[in-house]
């Protein structure tokens, strides 16, 4: 479990779930937290206990943070048991202060019972100060075998932030020119000229 979790979502009106890192406990239903979403979070906590951390529970939205070693296993469980069947987007977020790149999968479902839910599954990887996309330590396991729909999203994430997805069948450039030789453009150290 990654203990150095940045407090980025600790805000006033995000209903944060206080959770002890040493002994994960089932979240109690309270008036603040929506019931249905809490039940989904509890199913995840039941199964994986300390391997994941619930960041927030809001109406129709749950965010879960996992270590990159466990993400494939947890994603498989989410796909098979919780009926989340596709990924809506894959977002890479550069966090130079923590020396990390966060990747957030927004998973959705077409099953009528939970089709209004979005489960955000986030994980982190090392950020290299001088990136060498594909050859450095900025790597994550690909979720393409679990959620087929992430294929193009992960390709975009690789070119925009330099996160190499292992076991992804196709890591070519998608939106950038093939001869792009600058930093990955969505890193914070890539500056727009004149701004």
């Amino acid at each position, binding site marked *: 479990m990654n203990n150095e979790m940045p407090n980025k979502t600790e805000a006033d009106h995000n209903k944060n779930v206080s959770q002890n890192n040493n002994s994960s406990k089932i979240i109690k239903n309270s008036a603040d937290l929506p019931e249905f979403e809490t039940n989904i979070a509890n199913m995840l906590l039941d199964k994986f206990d300390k391997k994941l951390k619930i960041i927030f529970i809001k109406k129709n939205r749950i965010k879960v943070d996992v270590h990159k070693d466990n993400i494939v296993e947890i994603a498989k469980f989410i796909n098979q048991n919780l009926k989340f069947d596709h990924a809506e987007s894959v977002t890479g977020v550069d966090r130079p202060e923590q020396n990390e790149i966060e990747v957030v999968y927004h998973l959705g479902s077409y099953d009528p019972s939970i089709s209004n839910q979005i489960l955000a599954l986030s994980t982190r990887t090392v950020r290299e100060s001088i990136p060498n996309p594909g050859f450095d330590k900025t790597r994550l396991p690909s979720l393409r075998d679990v959620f087929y729909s992430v294929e193009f999203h992960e390709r975009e994430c690789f070119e925009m932030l330099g996160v190499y997805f292992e076991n992804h069948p196709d890591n070519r450039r998608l939106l950038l020119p093939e001869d792009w030789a600058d930093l990955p453009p*969505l890193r914070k150290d890539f500056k727009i000229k004149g701004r």
Partner: protein
Amino acid sequence: MISKLPPGIKVEQKGDNDKIMTLNVGPQHPGSGHMRIIVKIDGDYIVSCDPDPGYVHRGEEKMAEYRNYITNIPHLERPVIHDSCNILYPYCLGVEEILGIEVPERAKYVRVIASELNRCVYTLYWLAIYGIFLGHSTMFMWPAGDRELLIDLLEKLSGARVTHAYFVPGGVRNDMPSNFEDVCLRQINYFEKRIKQYDSIFYSNPILKSRTINTGVLRQNDAIRLGSTGSVLRASGIDFDLRKKEPYDVYDNLDFQTNVLKSGDSYARSKIPWLDMLESCKIIRNALEKIPKSGSVRVKLKPNPKAGNVETYKRVESGRGSLGMYIISNGKPEPYRVKISVGSFRNLICLPYLLKGEKLGNMPAVYWSLNYWPVEADR
């Protein structure tokens, strides 16, 4: 040799497949839009297809990190200027959530009316191109002409024909003009009569049917697995419309249905947006009935509003399916990260799957039926 190549790049081996020919469709070809489709064909049949977007990539997500929540409005609508209200919708909903703003009731109805008008404007433009792709030039002229009706309405509302920049966090930029409700009702009634005629000239046309029925069939479980959205998904028999499933603003008060077809072929995919336009007319009429007759339409924000360390993911149903905005704030006036998740980009993954084994001549019919807008997919 291989070890020095960047990962993921393969050198194509010359083999016995000499009869396979590679064709570049685009990026200047009128049958592709601003993107390139690399197709490999064996005779007349497509063996494999590799979409290559990115020719109109403008870095909207990067630009959004340099501007504050209000100055982001005009450039965030650029990816899809015909549907600019719908692309700003999730952004405004998201910023309202992180800033804690409650939108006035009247503004919610004005937003619904504007976004439904805009959905029709987009769909007509898309339909016009679909018509000309298939060599049906009447179907190019009619929607392009009828689109003017709605553009006039949106011009009355916002002052601009396209790129309205009409939605702002906290409501809409200005109230409706005094006679707007009557004009809108009249135009919509005429418009509905007009688009009903498309059925006889286009959708019942035996030539269109012979070219699109049973071409590019997307089965239901594949539509789910590929994560397709919008009309592509509903044409494959899945009833998923965010206006019903996760109603935003006042959609839960309005009376409408979602359209679902089961066949999943190009014909169904081209028909769903047209059925949605008829549904949009109902929504607009219903909203004009229920709209509060007076009241504010905008909550004034502080200059340079700041949110805390929060994040939000909001999505709406745009003309091309679910459109999500993921906004992360870190306490500064500018957002830390804005991710735009668009329906076009999500539906693009279906293209190689659908074109495999199809005839090359059917490529435009399949490609444009995906309701794909290249500029939006590239962002």
